[in-house]
């Protein structure tokens, strides 16, 4: 297999392709060859301030040109990047010390030593040299960056991402989607997530346009950029669905008018979309069907930080309800209890770089196989179906195992319910905690939904009560992860007394 990262650091990109950066107050666009020149100059700058191979560079900033330039420059000198998500990490001397950072670039004001403003980077770059520095060489097990997991509990775990795993994923994606001339990939999730940087590497390697946006400018940038591919997550598409649905209804005067939906989708996404990419969290089947009805294919996949992309639906192999077939270089092993483990030809790594004692051993088998903690099965055509988290399996006192995710999804189908998490009290009663979609809480709708859900599931799968949360679960109040997944443990802690109180909440 050709080493893509070595190609990335040693060859100039194909001419004729562009990258753009969108903010609320405007956009910048430049040729990929110009981007590569800037990265080359930034590599010289990093060397000049004393950064060398294996040194660590921290980045804590909104998506911007300088972020990308520094990431590529670090690759060119074999320095290791650590992308920190704002809000999850504060800039303190300890941040630099704990993660061994020689320098941290940020868009936040800070007087912490060795912290530099990212916004003035381009002004600080030296002029282009007459000849380029000799390219560095990577081997498959070299680490280029530290990924931080958006784990459900505690301090984020740090994981060194190896070159082999990055290349393996880039190859697999290219094989499935053939991104190339005519394509423009839209990226708005934080660049601190390594996978979002893949789309920039892909543009440089395979020759296509890429549009990067801040999170805040995402919806406006979508219309401005008119991409062919949108790299999103379920929460983002749920928002788009609501907007499209609402607009179509207002224009057609009725719900579900197919022509009006297609027109509204085209308006929201631009006219050129050939597919939407979704991952990171389970997608609601209703949302997936909605976009299909709008005439826009949406492809769900499966993977986690520790495995990178494992399976993916794509135009050549797609099955509703599944997360796709296993990509090349990966092997999915289903245990006798249905738990999913993933073996990789090129693992992301075989242990965490930063974690609590025992975390590495729990996640990684000695050969690097990842115990995902998810449950699923592979059908006769090779498509993987995810049933839920092994942690979400509740064993009742009668020995019956209940997978709560389908019940939670069923509850969430009601517009009055934003999120729903089910717990089990003393191995006998299932109690739901529902986060209201709005205030005042529509108690009637929640109770009606509880009855509807109970009537749709088996006798052991009956929710006895639903506790309505005081406020919606949000990232800010610590009850959702940055990828919009409910933090089960924190929700349990917050509502433990209501859950345990025999008459707490609303009864079916």
């Amino acid at each position, binding site marked *: 297999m050709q080493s893509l990262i070595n190609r990335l650091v040693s060859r100039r990109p194909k001419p004729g392709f562009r990258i753009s950066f969108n903010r609320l107050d405007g956009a910048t666009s430049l040729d990929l060859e110009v981007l590569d020149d800037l990265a080359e100059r930034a590599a010289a700058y990093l060397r000049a301030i004393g950064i060398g191979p294996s040194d660590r560079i921290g980045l804590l900033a909104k998506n911007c040109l300088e972020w990308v330039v520094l990431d590529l420059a670090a690759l060119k000198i074999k320095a290791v990047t650590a992308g920190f998500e704002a809000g999850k990490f504060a800039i303190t001397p300890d941040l630099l010390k704990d993660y061994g950072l020689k320098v941290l670039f940020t868009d936040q004001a800070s007087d912490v030593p060795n912290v530099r403003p990212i916004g003035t980077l381009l002004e600080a770059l030296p002029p282009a040299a007459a000849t380029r520095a000799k390219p560095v060489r990577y081997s498959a097990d070299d680490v280029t960056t530290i990924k931080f997991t958006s784990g459900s509990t505690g301090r984020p775990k740090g994981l060194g991402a190896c070159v082999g795993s990055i290349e393996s994923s880039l190859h697999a994606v290219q094989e499935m989607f053939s991104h190339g001339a005519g394509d423009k990939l839209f990226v708005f999730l934080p660049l601190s997530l390594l996978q979002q940087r893949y789309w920039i590497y892909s543009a440089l390697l395979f020759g296509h346009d890429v549009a990067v946006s801040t999170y805040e400018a995402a919806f406006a940038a979508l*219309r401005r950029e008119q991409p062919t591919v949108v790299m999103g997550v379920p929460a983002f598409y749920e928002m788009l669905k609501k907007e499209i649905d609402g607009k179509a209804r207002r224009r057609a005067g009725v719900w579900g008018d197919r022509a009006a939906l297609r027109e509204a989708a085209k308006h929201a996404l631009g006219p050129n979309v050939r597919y939407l990419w979704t991952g990171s969290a389970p997608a609601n089947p209703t949302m997936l069907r909605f976009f299909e009805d709008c005439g826009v294919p949406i492809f769900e996949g499966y993977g986690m930080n520790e495995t990178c992309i494992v399976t993916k639906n794509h135009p050549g192999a797609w099955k509703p309800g599944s997360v796709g077939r296993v990509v090349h270089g990966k092997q999915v092993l289903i245990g006798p209890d249905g738990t999913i483990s993933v073996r990789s030809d090129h693992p992301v790594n075989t242990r965490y770089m930063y974690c609590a004692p025992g975390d590495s051993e729990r996640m990684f088998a000695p050969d690097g196989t990842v115990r995902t903690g998810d449950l699923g099965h592979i059908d006769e055509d090779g498509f993987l179906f995810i049933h839920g988290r092994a942690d979400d399996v509740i064993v009742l006192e009668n020995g019956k195992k209940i997978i709560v995710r389908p019940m939670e999804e069923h509850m969430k189908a009601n517009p009055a319910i934003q999120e729903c998490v089910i717990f089990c009290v003393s191995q006998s009663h299932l109690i739901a905690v529902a986060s209201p979609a709005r*205030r005042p809480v529509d108690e009637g709708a929640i109770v009606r939904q509880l009855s509807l859900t109970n009537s749709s599931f088996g006798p052991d799968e009956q929710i006895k009560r639903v506790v309505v949360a005081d406020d919606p679960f949000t990232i800010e109040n610590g009850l959702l992860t940055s990828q919009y997944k409910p933090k089960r443990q924190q929700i349990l802690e917050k509502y433990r007394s209501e859950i345990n109180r025999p008459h707490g909440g609303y009864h079916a």
Partner: protein
Amino acid sequence: MPNIEQLVRDSFVDVLNEPDLQSGGLNIDRDMADEYGLTSLNKILLITSICDEAQIDLRHFTEHDLADMRTLREVIDAMSRASRARLVS
């Protein structure tokens, strides 16, 4: 000049997409997140959608301005100012 208040109300109902929510019944002085469960992603979509409909350039606003809009009245005021600025320029 478009009726900004009506547009803001309609867009808000569109973004939340609750069948029972009527634009005329919205309380424009209540916190949008507390009262109606508006998330940060909802708010971004709301502002984008209003600007689009009213042909207001989103460049009138910064990320900081977005964070400061907590009630529908604040959205209406900000949009009205931006709309007037557009007409003047």
